[in-house]
């Protein structure tokens, strides 16, 4: 299971990349894409949408199921990865390259996990 050490993580299997102090990019981890299976659809928020940490910001769909994506931070959506709307399978192919949303005016409500903590958490889940 790939877990890059330069990223932060959540217990709901999102990764967080701090572009700068108040801007992040969010995606789904390798663990997430592996358990979801082949993704065929992604529902993303719109630019300007307000996000609240812990709440659903959208969802991804495999053939069989829908899974919510949870906002790891509070903030405002500044960009969405439009490419994923047509090719959601990129999330499976490159989970850490396929960012879903970019969030600005970020406020951290809760401590995020570092790579070691996330790895330990994943082992427990299995």
């Amino acid at each position: 299971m790939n877990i890059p050490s330069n990223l932060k993580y959540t217990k709901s299997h999102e990764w967080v990349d701090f572009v700068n102090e108040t801007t992040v990019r969010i995606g789904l981890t390798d663990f997430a894409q592996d358990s979801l299976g082949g993704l065929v659809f992604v529902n993303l928020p719109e630019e300007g949408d307000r996000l609240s940490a812990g709440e659903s910001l959208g969802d991804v769909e495999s053939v069989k199921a829908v899974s919510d994506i949870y906002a790891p931070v509070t903030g405002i959506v500044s960009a969405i990865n439009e490419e994923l709307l047509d090719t959601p399978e990129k999330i499976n192919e490159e989970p850490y390259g396929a960012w879903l949303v970019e969030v600005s005016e970020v406020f951290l409500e809760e401590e995020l996990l570092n790579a070691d903590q996330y790895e330990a958490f994943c082992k427990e889940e299995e």
Partner: protein
Amino acid sequence: MEQKTPLYDCHVSGGGKIVPFAGYLMPVQYSGVIEEHMAVRKQAGLFDVSHMGEVIISGPDALKNVNWLFTNDFTNMTDGRVRYSPMCNEEGGIVDDLIVYRMAAERYFVVINASNRQKDVEWMKAHLIGDVSLEDISGEVAQIALQGPYSGDILRKLTKEENIPSKYYTFLDHCRVAGVECLVSQTGYTGEYGYELYCAPKDAVALWAALLEAGKESGLIPCGLGARDTLRLEAAMPLYGHEMDDSISPLETGLNFAVKMGKEDFIGKKGIESRGEPKKVRVGLKAVGRGIIREHQMVHMGEKTIGITTSGTHCPYLGGAYAMALVDIEHSAIGTLVEVDVRGRRVTAAITVLPFYKKGK
């Protein structure tokens, strides 16, 4: 406490992801739903369907009973034929859908849904008439489905031509396939050319292994329940609990072809008649807007709610989101644009011809 089919260990060692289903531990997928679905459409796929229930209705009044219990007409059936039918309650709602194999004039082999087995057996036993007996032999039958364009070629490697039924909805009994005694029928739940093989539980593992081996060259792969559902949906085949339940009459859900109102009587005939002309009908929906329509989502036309979806998914072969729905008959014309409430968002869909997919010749 879930049961295991005779093929459980094969699924585990084959890398199948096991989930509980209808009281059994079954593989939902092996390599992935999409790969398995495409394999069945292009090469071949192998399914464990041993969880299904099987009963034998036999005796001098066997035909009388199948005509009484089920809505279809079995009078002109010959040995070796298979016929599909709903089974209704007195109100005309559907207890289950099933297929009937005529073994002999006084012996019928009936295959019922795993999820309804207990209910069906109790129901049938309570409604038998005359000189007949009903035996639940589900525990003594294992079943494997081999589906896909290459399924005939694969079977030919393991048995003689005379053991392969040449027509859809026919079967041959006491066939030796890979040395295993089987009943082989040209039936299936994928909308694809294929076969279902019934054998003794003790022979299932050997038969499964022989089929996988013989099918390797052709690209045969094991498939799970996930692909079984996407395949049947693409072919617009109904599933109990979705397109049918005990409140829905077969005429409301597009099963008219299997309801013979001309029969003198059958359980549910009066119930169906008393409902009058169906006010709702089963339709196909193709998502036009972005979104995947799923089951139990409301269907709207402007401000009006006109129905509800019964099944829906992303269909891998067709490459789009398709669904089936029960809608008011006055809004059911092909081409009608509707909106489905998909988790709070309206997705536009067009009413489309069923089936969505039909196999090539």
